[in-house]
């Protein structure tokens, strides 16, 4: 088989796939009688045309970095974790419990504790599917889907029956104490004397997400555990031969994956809402799949892809605000991006290989 040059494999293929996805999205916009060019302009100015737009774009991107990393770590172990959604949901619960447990004096104290809470709960939610996959061979794809539903029901029950303040109509927790409020990126810019944005939810979690990218990169490509995860992901038989326990790697990889998904809650629950509401994950777990696919499971790729999806999300919100195009357009674009970059990869790759093959010889 003609192997594509590395750059073509890593950059050209996803870019062409992306272009195809956007081209078809434009057709969809035309089909509903709208102007794709105007839509694009709205999205671009809304998402990256102002510090306000950036604030939201980066906020969404932070969510997607966490879930994208979560999906990627599992993917390196050959596990398709569709459950980042549920794990992030539970992570939210963990963060909320930590934030509500104590009258935190300062966010710098609350943040590590909340991170731990979110990561633990997210990991715990990944544990059962992981264990079932490792021990009983239950397909992790199906079990994690089921666990998404169960997580939604569980959160619902907790919010309605346990954490809802008396008299409140809202299935939501009380507001977190002031000591848990994370500094936003604009606060931080302000602290170093730069006027940047205001009242946007992008917060210090964005830096944590970047750190997570770095750590995941180290984990996967520089540690023995990462070596084992990748080896197991390529061949379970070979892993066993090498003394890599499939049970251990499946469980560990899913725990790390779940923990990363759970960490997302630091951004959306602690950093943005300041309380735990229903459906706070907003599908970020599913977007994580697309992000990981587009980013080729590499932290740098994930970071870039998360920015793209953050842009789509924020641009989509602006679109809903300033045009007659419903927000669901974004769902369609996401679907097309997932389809072309993830599933129809070969459609782009095959002709490219032929092209490069001809050039090579």
């Amino acid at each position, binding site marked *: *088989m*003609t192997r594509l040059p590395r750059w073509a494999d890593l950059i050209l293929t996803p870019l062409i796939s992306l272009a195809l996805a956007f081209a078809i999205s434009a057709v969809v916009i035309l089909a509903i009688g709208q102007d794709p060019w105007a839509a694009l302009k709205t999205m671009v100015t809304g998402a990256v045309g102002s510090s306000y737009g950036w604030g939201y774009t980066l906020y969404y991107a932070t969510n997607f970095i966490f879930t994208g990393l979560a999906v990627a770590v599992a993917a390196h172990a050959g596990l398709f974790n569709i459950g980042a959604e549920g794990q992030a949901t539970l992570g939210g619960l963990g963060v909320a419990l930590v934030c509500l447990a104590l009258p935190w004096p300062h966010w710098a104290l609350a943040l590590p504790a909340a991170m731990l809470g979110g990561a633990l709960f997210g990991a715990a939610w990944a544990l059962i599917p992981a264990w079932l996959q490792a021990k009983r061979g239950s397909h992790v794809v199906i079990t994690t889907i089921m666990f998404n539903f169960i997580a939604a029901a569980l959160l619902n029950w907790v919010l309605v029956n346990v954490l809802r303040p008396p008299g409140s109509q809202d299935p939501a927790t009380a507001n977190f104490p002031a000591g848990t409020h994370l500094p936003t990126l604009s606060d931080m810019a302000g602290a170093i004397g730069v006027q940047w944005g205001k009242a946007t939810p992008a917060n210090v979690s964005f830096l944590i997400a970047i750190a997570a990218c770095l750590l995941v990169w*180290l984990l996967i490509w*520089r*540690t*023995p555990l990462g*070596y*084992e995860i*990748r*080896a197991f992901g*390529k*061949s379970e*038989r*070979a892993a*066993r*031969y*090498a*003394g*890599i*326990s*499939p*049970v251990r790697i499946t469980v560990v990889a899913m725990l790390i994956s779940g923990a990363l998904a759970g960490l997302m809650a630091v951004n959306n629950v602690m950093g943005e809402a300041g309380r735990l509401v229903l459906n706070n994950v907003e599908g970020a777990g599913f977007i994580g799949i697309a992000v990981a696919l587009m980013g080729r499971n590499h932290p740098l790729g994930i970071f870039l892809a998360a920015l793209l999806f953050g842009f789509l999300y924020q641009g989509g919100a602006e679109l809903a605000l300033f045009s007659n195009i419903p927000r669901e357009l974004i769902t369609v674009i996401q679907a097309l991006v997932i389809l072309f970059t993830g599933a129809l990869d070969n459609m782009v790759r095959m002709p490219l290989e032929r092209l490069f*093959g001809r050039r090579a010889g």
Partner: protein
Amino acid sequence: MTATDSVAGRHAAPETASVAPAIELRGISKAFGPVQANKDISMTVPRGTIHGIVGENGAGKSTLMSILYGFYRPDAGQILIGGRDAGITDSQSAIRAGIGMVFQHFKLVPNMTVLENVILGAEDSALLAPSLSRARGELRRLAEEYELQVDPDAVVETLSVGHQQRVEILKALYRHADILILDEPTGVLTPAEAEHLFRILRGLREQGKTIIVITHKLREVMEITDNVSVMRRGEMVATVRTADTSPEQLAELMVGRKVLLRVDKAPARPGAPVLEVVRLEMVDRTGVTRLRGVDLTVRAGEIVGIAGVSGNGQTQLMEILGGYAEPGARVTGAVRMNGADLPLTRTDAAARRRAGIGNIPEDRQVEGLIMDFSCWENTVFGHHRDPEYQSGPLMDNDRVRQRAERLIAQFDVRPANCHLAARNFSGGNQQKIVVAREIEEKPALLLVGQPTRGVDIGAIEFIHRRLIEMRDAGAAILLVSVELDEIMGLSDRIVVMFDGRIMGERQPDQTSAAELGMLMAGVEGGGIPPAQGQPRAHPDARPDLAKGIL
């Protein structure tokens, strides 16, 4: 004058028969991406003959036959059946042209019955019932005519490989095949089963059918074929009459140079027992008993060879010793390493490595290597947790790479580029990477499974020499191979396994392939004394080959 030159110009059909040849291939070429599997191949097979095809692994034999069967489409070339262009574009048209093929890896649906497998694709009508009853009668007839008995209602996965092969042959005959292609049919058979197969093939030839057999075993070629074609690196280098050639000449043709068909080694000087296996039993997760009380000792400085048809428990034995038995299996008995008991439950291949057990696995591509990892990453596979490759919590990749480069040079791995992914090396070089890794760790006990499967003769020589060197340096080596010749050439002691039991132990210089073959088939005590051998003039009676590696 090279061997190739000596047979050049013999491409012409060995017999100029008045009737058109059954098969004529003209200028067949086929590339898989950059791999040119077949290059401008022409070949003629006269009607009613058995035609052998030999060649090293990867020479393109299977590809050529798959093209004949319409499974692959050739990039160029023409296929004539009975003198006419048969228009073979897919398997459907090949079947219509009267061609049947038994693939190296059977193409059966494991959870369907024999009957269903036979009619698949050759049903008479949209409803199954009539086809099934017709096939039942037809199978009965074929069974009687060709000694092809098999229970039509048995589910295929419950059949032995020998019977599965019969199903494949029946499939072809049911479709009225006049031309039958068999790809390495004896690799998985006991000598007795192989003998049975040859009887069937001769019977088919009597009926005027044309048969092509791909094989690696030169003695089989000598035994049953009328003509033989030799392939090398995608090209057809010669077609000769079997009666006019010899195994040595065929080997030369295959490799392109003279080959040494024997292993030179000094007598062993066994020391203290390193590995002791006591009454080892194993029941796998599906409840099948795989090992039935295996007793075995391997001493320092000796090579113990385990002969046996694959599937008789050797794999399970090696996996248990290596610490990676299939999860869910029940293992009892004892395994001692230098006198200390090794745990049998909660096994862990890493712990076994730390205990000094090295392991060259049976299947390098599925077990021994991660095909997508670079060569250098593969050179620490299984040893990646050794403290010497760590720096702090991270892996010391520079160090691993330096070591990999040294190993590549030492073991002559080609291409000498440690950054290439394992899958980009040929089979022989992949095996060298595994051997280098395991030998380099200087284990006290080395488990070796099928070390030369799919490896060319040059590499075989190299690997064999390394194993003997290790033995001479005092390592204990347990060798599993389905190649009797390899077992006989390398081992200091030979044990034969059948159905999870040790059938007996023999000294290599006091036994024969025939005797081992009987033991491998489960005949207690080996039956025939070595001196008598097989009644027919069997190639293994020749001393050079009995100790050889082909």
